[in-house]
């Protein structure tokens, strides 16, 4: 697995140093928070609820950014922008891409705390 194509590895290392023994907890909290977000995004997409779409994507973007999962944060940002412009086009594909990217990020993070 190529960690560098999913993370800013330098930032991730720094984060690990800062969090010390609370690093596993941070990962766990991130995963607990993020797991429901994929289905929440899908639901908001089906309901054409742009406000929810935008808020969830924004929140997801912030959280993944802070864990240095920058490609994931970028995907979230794209949904946030489309939702802001009330543009449904391609959102389903983006959610699919987020689902895949998130699962990679998740397994990398979980491998770090084993």
């Amino acid at each position, binding site marked *: 697995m190529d960690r560098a194509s999913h993370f800013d590895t330098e930032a991730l290392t720094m984060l690990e140093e800062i*969090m010390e023994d609370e690093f596993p907890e941070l990962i766990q909290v991130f995963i*607990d928070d993020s797991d429901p977000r994929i289905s929440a995004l899908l639901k908001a997409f089906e309901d054409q609820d742009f406000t929810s779409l935008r808020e969830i994507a*924004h929140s997801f*973007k*912030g959280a993944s*950014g802070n864990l*240095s999962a920058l490609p994931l944060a970028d995907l979230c940002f794209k949904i946030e922008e489309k939702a802001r412009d009330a543009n449904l086009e391609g959102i389903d594909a983006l959610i699919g891409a987020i689902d895949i990217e998130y699962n990679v990020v998740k397994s990398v993070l979980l491998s770090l705390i084993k």
Partner: protein
Amino acid sequence: MKILIADDNASDRLLLSKIISKQGHEIIAAENGKEAIDSYVKYSPDIILMDVLMPEVDGMEAAKEIKRIAGEDLVPIIFLTSLVDAQSLANCLASGGDDFLTKPYNFIILKAKIDAFVRMKKMHATLQKQRDTISANNQHMMHEQHVAKAVFDNVAHSGCLDSVNIKYMLSPLAVFNGDVLLAARKPSGGMHVFLGDFTGHGLPAAIGAMPMAEIFYGMTAKGFALRDILREINSKLKSILPVGFFCCAAVVDLSFTKRSISMWMGGVPDCYLLSNQGTELKSIRSHHLPLGVLSSAQFDDEMTEHSMEVDDRLYMWSDGIVEARDSEGNMYGEERLLEVFNQKTPPDSLFEAVKDSVNAFVGESERDDDTTIIELSMVDESELEQSALVEEKVRVTGPSDWQLEYELGVDSLKHFNPLPLMMHIMMEVPALRSMGGQLFTIVAELFSNSFEHGILKLDSALKSTPAGFAEFYALREQRVQELESGFIKIKMKHASESGRSGVFSLSIEDSGEGFDYRNKVNKNQQNMNAESTGANKFSGRGIPLIYSLCHSLEYQGCGNEVVAEIHWPQKILAE
């Protein structure tokens, strides 16, 4: 410091909490804007980190509300945002945020920002505390000044300043100024007027005025001469004022009967005397050092005499008038002042003209000195209201039944003037106070008769020519020097009937040979109502005047003792 972190992302909260608690701060966490507001009210955190987009109440709204609640307290709010466009960041600051931090966080910058706001917060708290202290002190001081000012005004700008022959202006500068204006009627008639200008401003300048005014009024009321009053004030100020503090003064002894003034000026600008219906202007220059500079031994009480007819006016001012500045800082100056006098303004409106000229010149600019000005006119004494001398008709207290005997030996006679002391004793009797002038005349005349004729054996016939007048005083001086024996015994007695009426008797006995009073007094009494002129003039003993002032006047023994009786209430005296 307590730091509130408001973010809806659990992982972000955890991350921030970890970083900031590592810096040694206490963390309070909130999951949305509403919780943030509640936590602010509950825990009053010192600094707030706030996510911009949050459910319930968003970050910007929460920030506005918290700032509103905080009021004057400084609560730095740092927005946490993943928004990156300039407008969004500007909105963060516009809604009351103090700074922003973009996600993903740069840990080094986050730490530095927290440190910076902690410093700012501490500085603000110090400032606020100092401001509150200053404000409390200032309030306290203003209150004290207002109370002190009320006392000061009662003391420093009082007496008979409202007399018909006085116009004056006091500048409203600050709360206090160092200018003092005092005026008092003399018990013997006439008036003492005092314009003083203490160095400096404010309370330090005003404080010296208190004892000065006390001395001025007290000694004037007791009949002391102005020279003695000045000496006393000078010595008092010299002893109480710090070095470098003194009082410039222009002081006038105005005599309505002699139509003249005696002036003492120290350190003040020239005074102007306007006479002859406003056609003649004379400036009077200060020749002395201010009061409170010289020791008593060096102090010069010499006064200059100036005659003043009815309607003549004397103008005195503190240097604040001459040094008053306009908005460009130019001084008003003496030339502008003289110009007003030379404009042929009618004397009646001259005072207002000077006032208007100064006010117009100064305009709206802040006055930087105390500007005091007074106009003193010569009038007939009868024009002055008696109110200044009439004591309040409240319950009469003070001694009513008393007597004393006071004997002055030769040494005392040579060096001591007992009149102020005698006046002081008489003035303790309330009913006698309103007769002060009259009593002073009686005591002064009878005492000087005893002293000059009885003790010094001077012949008052000498005084009938101007040359003889001078000789009389030269001889008097010489005999005082040579005096080796003698005494004067003064007896005073007062009795009152239930406080409604009373009798005061004064006896003065000297060790001299007396005189043939039976012959002279009788002769004089016959001439009482006729004009006493030529050979019949009862020179020296001044008796006709005294007769008119007393209920009775009798000589006793060989003429070396005289007894005067004064009854009160008095019948209205015919002028």
